[in-house]
């Protein structure tokens, strides 16, 4: 049969974000496929070079929309490394709470997201409802639902509002008790198993070839390769958590890990709230008004573990008021571009969207 050409996206309900998977199919089997990125290109790296260090706070969360806090964190860490700035202890813990809440929200979005391609909308609706609660908590802490601009150079922008820790605890306990429902609807659901078991495999051997990190990699190699464990930042070395792994990477394994990571994040949040000290939350990177802050010369790469894998900012400072060069290593770059080119062929049309969901592909961070 003749090869037929199909587009999954950019305007396509199975595609999360504005990207397009171009597929050449024979029947239902994909023969060749590419990701067409760039629909969300805003020239981020150029924009950041042209904005002051302080102004970049407004810009950075927009690199990856579903999980903006990792951008802020990575940017802040990179700048602090250049400045050799020690930030207050409490700020570390607040940052961890924020990051883990963001991780839960991103996982819920991705986990609920498989409701789209598999048609199980109830799963999606429930996950989005819980995610919305996290956004409400974020709004209380930071003043905005999505673009928090909360983790800044030198700590966090302001202290946690009074009583929010209780609210967070209530929420995570409630979510913890309902995780089993997510399993019921998703990975323990017999009809869903048909879709997610043994599909869109990521063989162990090719992980390093692609450069995939995060859940994709951990589900294949079976080792706890998590930056939070391997090269801890913030205070991840002072909390106890496990890194769920698997050595057989199909969609089911990856989704299972996602739910397990949500559990681990809940554990981390609980520990953070318990261990968080009182004290100041922010130090200024230097004297002077913010528009005249400068950062010493240097090159630094600041990787952190996002919900999709290693996310990092490569920053070069020239000693001026603006960064000289900011490079963003989008966590989904390898699986999004090379992964789709190399490992989607051979699967079915139905599975393409699942690859996007389970591997964690965030179009804006590929395009920037």
């Amino acid at each position, binding site marked *: 049969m003749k090869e037929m050409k199909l587009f999954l996206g950019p305007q396509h309900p199975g595609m999360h974000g504005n990207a397009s998977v171009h597929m050449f199919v024979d029947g239902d089997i994909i023969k060749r496929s590419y990701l067409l990125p760039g629909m969300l290109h805003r020239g981020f790296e150029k*924009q950041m070079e*042209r904005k002051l260090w302080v102004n970049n706070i407004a810009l950075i969360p927009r690199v990856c929309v579903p999980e903006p806090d990792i951008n802020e964190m990575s940017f802040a860490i990179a700048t602090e490394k250049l400045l050799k700035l020690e930030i207050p202890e409490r700020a570390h813990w607040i940052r961890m709470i924020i990051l883990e809440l963001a991780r839960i929200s991103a996982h819920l979005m991705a986990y609920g997201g498989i409701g789209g391609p598999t048609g199980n909308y109830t799963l999606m609706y429930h996950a989005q409802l819980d995610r919305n609660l996290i956004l409400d908590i974020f709004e209380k802490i930071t003043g905005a639902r999505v673009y928090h601009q909360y983790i800044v150079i030198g700590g966090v922008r302001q202290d946690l509002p009074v009583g929010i820790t209780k609210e967070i605890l209530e929420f995570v306990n409630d979510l913890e008790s309902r995780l089993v429902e997510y399993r019921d609807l998703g990975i323990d659901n017999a009809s869903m198993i048909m879709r997610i078991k043994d599909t869109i495999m990521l063989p162990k051997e090719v992980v390093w070839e692609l450069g995939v990190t995060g859940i994709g990699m951990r589900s294949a190699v079976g080792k706890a390769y998590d930056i939070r464990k391997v090269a801890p930042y913030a205070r991840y070395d002072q909390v106890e958590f496990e890194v769920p792994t698997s050595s057989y990477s199909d969609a089911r394994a990856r989704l299972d890990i996602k739910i397990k990571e949500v559990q681990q994040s809940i554990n981390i949040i609980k520990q953070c709230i318990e261990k968080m000290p009182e004290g100041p939350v922010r130090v200024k990177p230097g004297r002077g008004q913010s528009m005249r802050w400068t950062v010493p010369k240097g*090159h630094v790469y600041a990787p952190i573990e996002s919900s999709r894998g290693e996310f990092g900012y490569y920053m070069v400072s020239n000693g001026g008021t603006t960064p000289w060069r900011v490079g963003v290593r989008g966590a989904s770059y390898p699986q999004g571009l090379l992964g789709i080119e190399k490992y989607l062929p051979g699967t079915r049309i139905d599975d393409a969207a699942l690859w996007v969901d389970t591997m964690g592909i965030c179009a804006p961070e590929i395009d920037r």
Partner: protein
Amino acid sequence: MMNSMNNIKEVEDLVNKTVKVLKTENIDKNQIAFEIEKLEVHRLLTVLKNTGWIQLSYLSAIDWPDENKFEVVYIVFNWEKPVYIQVRTKIDRGNPVMESILPIFPGAKYYEREAHEFFGIAFPGNPDYEKQLILENWDDIPPLRKDFDPSAYSARKFPSREYPQDFSVKDPNNKTLEKTEERKKRAKALRVGGKKQ
């Protein structure tokens, strides 16, 4: 962390043994940077990959127009010995060519395409490097070069809104604000020797 300091030391020894290092920067206990010659990049990356730095985390370039150079950066990572290694090399800006590292790290394919698109660096050895990736019908110099001005480009191509309402209350005799503006302009012209911060 005694262990990680050892790792850094080990890396430093390994790299120094393999290639001639022009500059070493110790960034922190998990990161170290080496500046080396262009021709030795492949050798170093091969050695590093064989010793466990199997993950290519990042590949990109930096523009240094004052030196008339591009700096190509490779960041590799070893999950067992957690050290990020920046391998940097400077290449000529006028004729930017850097051999592809595709045979060593197949994952570099799209990074190289992107670097070509945004800086104009050629990566012979990468079959697709000249194809457009993120931009479409681009009609100017590669946008991440320092001499490209996105503001001007945007102003030229995409008009900004001119709002009809102004909110100002003006008194034609009151020139204080205009005068302040002019003064500022004058003083700005007088600034000479200062280097732009």
